[in-house]
């Protein structure tokens, strides 16, 4: 559906994105994740024909964004970071206008407007001026605008930014309900959003893709190890060396606790080697006090930080 190859964009001498390549299958929701200024918006703007790339190609449904720009534009719905709203119009008139310039025939435009207003639940506000709407409603009008011509591809740039928690949930539900009929690319710098709405994630940082996988795989792949946290009452140095000597343990590190004589250890083990039983047995045998033990999972949030702050480690792993 969407094929991007070696996309590069320079602003002056500064590269906003470098050699970005990925594909999106039909009906998929792809999360485009990265910190601010990572190149998400640039990529999306190239995909939507807003500006040309310096080099590389991007195709939507087989149409090149540069060569067949008009064909591409008919097939995409785009919600930029700031919804492009004419605030002095009513919701209804605005959507009619967008419908017309997106190529809907005069006779059908009212019907379509009423359908998307239904879908995005903005019908009660149809006759109000957009400038009088709340941020959440404006965002929905923005999504309605992107949906109006029933495009095959939806490109949403930070669709939940600036909304309150209730609105965020509503917008996410809305996006999820659109999957299947539409292929969706959605950018965000908020992690939970990706794990909640997307099937696949691409993480981009400083203009390059640093990881691309399904949400679960990405977490697993990045972990490469599992963590166990134990609190032991006993001679710290001795405990640590014993644990380190165990089979399957790759690293340990000490963590101070508030209680005297009690030391916390973060034990990193090989993947799928659940050492909790052995660890417990060891500590009991030595006559130390086992006060706490729990597995520590790595959340996507950690993955994200890991990826975008320590790129070298990722490419090495």
């Amino acid at each position, binding site marked *: 559906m969407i094929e991007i190859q070696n996309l590069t964009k320079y*602003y002056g001498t500064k590269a906003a994105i470098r050699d970005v390549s990925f594909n999106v299958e039909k009906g998929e929701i792809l999360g485009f994740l990265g910190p601010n200024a990572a190149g998400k918006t640039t990529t999306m*703007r190239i995909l*939507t*024909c*807003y*500006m*040309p790339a310096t080099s590389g190609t991007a195709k939507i449904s087989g149409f090149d964004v540069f060569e067949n720009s*008009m064909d591409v*534009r*008919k097939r*995409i719905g*785009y919600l*930029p970071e*700031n919804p*492009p*709203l*004419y*605030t*002095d*119009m009513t919701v209804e*008139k605005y959507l009619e*206008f*967008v419908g*017309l*310039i*997106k*190529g809907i025939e*005069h006779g059908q435009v009212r019907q379509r407007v009423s359908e998307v207003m239904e879908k995005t639940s903005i019908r009660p506000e149809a006759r109000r001026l957009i400038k009088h709407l709340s941020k959440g409603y404006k965002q929905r009008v923005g999504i309605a*605008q992107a949906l109006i011509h029933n495009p095959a591809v939806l490109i949403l740039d930070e669709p939940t930014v600036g909304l309150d928690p209730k609105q965020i949930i509503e917008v996410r539900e809305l996006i999820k309900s659109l999957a299947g009929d539409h292929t969706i690319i959605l950018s965000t710098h908020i992690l939970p959003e990706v794990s909640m709405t997307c099937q696949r994630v691409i993480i981009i940082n400083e203009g390059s893709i640093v990881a691309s996988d399904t949400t679960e795989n990405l977490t697993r792949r990045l972990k490469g190890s599992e963590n166990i946290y134990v609190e032991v009452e006993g001679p710290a140095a001795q405990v640590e060396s014993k644990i380190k000597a165990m089979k399957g343990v790759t690293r340990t590190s000490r963590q101070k606790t508030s209680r005297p004589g009690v030391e916390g250890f973060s034990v990193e083990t090989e993947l799928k080697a659940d050492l909790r039983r052995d660890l417990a047995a060891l500590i009991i045998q030595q006559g130390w006090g086992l006060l706490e033990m729990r597995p520590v999972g790595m959340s996507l949030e950690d993955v994200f930080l890991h990826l975008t702050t320590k790129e070298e480690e990722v490419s090495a792993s």
Partner: protein
Amino acid sequence: MKNTLAVYNRELRSYFSSPLAYAVMAGFFLIAGFFFYAILTNFLNYAMRSEMQAQYYRMAPPPINVNMIALRPFFHNIAIVMVFAVPLITMRLYAEEFRSGTIELLLTSPIRNIETLLGKYFSAVTLYAALIAGTFVYQVLLFLYGKPELGQILSSYLGMLLLGGAFISVGIFLSTLTDNQIVAGFLTIILLLLFWVIGWADEFAGPKLGAFLGYISLLSHFDEFAKGVIDLKDIILYLSFSVFFLFLTYVSLESKRWRTR
């Protein structure tokens, strides 16, 4: 065509859903009405005096041409007012799209720049035409109480319309250069004034350059229409002036795509 019409309708709606159109219209009719009143009073004084003179010398009153003495200066005056009114109409056309980010909608929709441009241009021309159409009332008054010549009035209105088209093309071009309406409007006023008076330089600018400056001066061509002379070369000058600036606008829009940010 359908796209152009959609943009045209949206722009017109936007003029009338903001105070802008009303403010411009109210201001324009106030000052146009004042000009009409002042010029007509002047004309009546003159006519009365020449009639008294004729009575004194026991001669038939001389024919006084209301078109030349009253209407020609009236049209010149409202043309000057347009130098200030048109920038108010055109300054937001693109600057506002850039500022609010709606340009992103236009550039990612299956609509060509030329279609947007023409829609915007003709919406401004329509508002402008509504302004000058409002002054028909004065002509009706003249016909009720006198015998003005219709031909000259019509040629003056044709001149006003062509002049407005040229003014608007300059304004719309400058509106693509900035995302600040005030800057766009101010630059338009300056440029229009310059085009208005540039013919003054033809006396000291040397024979070749002087002739050229006289030719592109919008003022000298407008006077032909106000005198009742419709010359093809004046029409072509105004039309090619508009087309030239619309072309510059188009180029400016196309190049925007390549230098975003």
